[in-house]
C-alpha cells in the first residue's frame, strides 16, 4: 500500500502518540501531532488540511468530541475523523460530535489499517 495521506494525531499522552504514530507511519501517512483538542482545532484554523484525524477523547483544555464539533463546524466535512478511547462510553460521544469511526484503545493496527485504506481508496477515486 502506498499513500501520502496527511494524518493529524491528537492525544495528550506521549506514549500513545508514539505508538499510534508508528502505526500511521507504517501506513505511509505524513503525521502531524497535537496534544489536545485546542491544538487540533488551531491546526485547521491555520489552514492546514488533513485526510484523516485520529483523536483521543479525554484531553485537557479541549476534549476530542469538543474539537470534532468545532472542526466540522469550520466546514471540514470531508476529512475522516476516527475517535479513539479506552472509555467504554466514548463511541456515542464521538459519533454524536461528528466522528466517522471509533477505535477502542489500545489501538490495534489491524483495526486502524482498513480505515486508512478507505481514505486512500476514496482519494484515488
Amino acid at each position, binding site marked *: 500500500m502506498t499513500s501520502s495521506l496527511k494524518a493529524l494525531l491528537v492525544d495528550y*499522552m506521549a*506514549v500513545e502518540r*508514539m505508538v499510534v504514530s508508528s502505526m500511521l507511519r507504517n501506513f505511509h501517512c505524513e503525521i502531524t501531532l497535537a496534544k489536545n483538542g485546542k491544538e487540533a482545532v488551531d491546526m485547521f484554523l491555520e489552514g492546514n488540511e488533513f485526510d484523516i484525524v485520529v483523536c483521543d477523547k479525554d484531553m485537557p483544555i479541549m476534549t476530542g468530541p469538543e474539537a470534532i464539533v468545532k472542526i466540522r463546524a469550520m466546514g471540514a466535512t470531508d476529512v475522516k475523523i476516527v475517535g479513539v478511547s*479506552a472509555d467504554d462510553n466514548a463511541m456515542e460521544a464521538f459519533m454524536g460530535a461528528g466522528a466517522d469511526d471509533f477505535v477502542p*484503545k489500545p*489501538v490495534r*493496527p489491524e483495526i486502524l489499517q482498513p480505515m486508512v485504506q478507505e481514505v486512500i481508496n476514496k482519494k484515488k477515486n
Partner: protein
Amino acid sequence: MVPEMGYLDEQFNQLEELQDESSPNFVEEVVALFLKDSPRLLSNIEQTIGKYPQDFYRLDSLVHQLKGSGSSIGAVRMKNECSVFKAHCNDRNLEGCRRSLQKMKREHATLKQKLESYFQLLRQVGPREHAVNSRK
C-alpha cells in the same frame, strides 16, 4: 520473560511488531517514555488523594491517563488496577482509592524492574538475536 509472567499482554507483542530496521529500539523507547511519565502521574494521583475536599473527578482523570498509556505498552496488571481505582472513584471511596494506589505503585515498581532486566538482557544478546521486523 516478562510477557509470560502475566505482567504484559499481547499489546506488548504489537509493539514488537512495530519495531523494524528503521526504528530498531522502538519498543525500548516507548517503554522508556512510559517509565518516565508514569511516576509523575502516580505522584499527581497521590497528591490529589491527599487534598481536601476530595476531587474524585481529577483522580479519575489522572488514572484514566495512566490506564491509557499503560495499556498502550501492554501493562495489563497496571491497567486492571487502574480500572479498580476508577471504580473506587465512581463510588467516592477514598480508602479504596488509597489501597488501589499502593497496589499500582507496587505493580509499577515490579514492572519497571522486570522491563529494565528484559532490555538489559536483549542488549547482552545483541541486536541480531531478537525479533526485529523487516520493513514490509
